[in-house]
């Protein structure tokens, strides 16, 4: 299922229960503007935001629900992500329960996993 997000992603697909978003280079550049000039990298908070964007698309397509991020349970950043690293974000559902949906997400950049997170979503108010 291809999905277009003109702002953040060049491409987003959902297959086999995994949503995969390819981050637009111009968007990555914008996220880095002024962040450690001379050696810019995407702030971790914004990587978490990209994880949530992809997780939200996963739940919208799979569960048919408009959701909002309720909690970042845990998110670890293993390596700096430069804007030209070819950023790909993947998300998959790990649990659907009474307090919402839990999603695991990874950020891949420069051919390696740069960040991993677990997010919880709730129904949009």
């Amino acid at each position, binding site marked *: 299922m291809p999905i277009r997000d003109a702002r953040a992603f060049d491409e987003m697909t959902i297959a086999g229960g995994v949503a995969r978003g390819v981050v637009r280079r111009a968007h990555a550049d914008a996220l*880095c*503007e*002024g*962040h*450690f*000039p001379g*050696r810019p990298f995407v*702030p*971790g*908070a*914004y990587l*978490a*935001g990209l994880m*949530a964007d992809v997780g939200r698309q996963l739940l919208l397509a799979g569960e048919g629900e408009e959701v*909002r*991020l*309720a*909690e*970042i*349970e*845990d*998110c*670890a*950043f293993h390596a*700096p992500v430069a804007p030209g690293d070819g950023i790909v974000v993947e998300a998959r559902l790990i649990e659907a329960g009474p307090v919402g949906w839990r999603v695991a997400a990874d950020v891949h950049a420069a051919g390696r996993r740069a960040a991993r997170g677990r997010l919880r979503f709730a129904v949009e108010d």
Partner: protein
Amino acid sequence: MSVDLPPPAALLRHRGPALLLESIDAHEGGRLSCSTVARDDWTWPRMLEAAAQTAGLLAGLQPGGPAAGVVAQVRDVVVRRPAYAGRLRIDATLDRRVLQFWRCRATVRAADASVLLEGLVTLGTGPEDA
């Protein structure tokens, strides 16, 4: 509480639109309070980044703290309001230090003191600390 500190711009490596903190309002040991610039487009990732900048300042003020720390982990971050317009107040407290990692609890508040976002931010040493 002492505020005998230079402004965030003099302490952080962030510039231009990435610099979200405007002032240090209070500092005492393992506690720091900052105010952000006023914006009408605060999203939760931007609030979290402002919290990380506050935590980075606090970690950098500790003995042996990083000069330009980077976020290594965020945990238990609860988003109470995903968007806001105005100026934020951010309070950070040092929760624990393990080796070269400083974990801080950060709370992001609106002008009326209601909590917008809160959670744990862990800073590690950055490339400039090597």
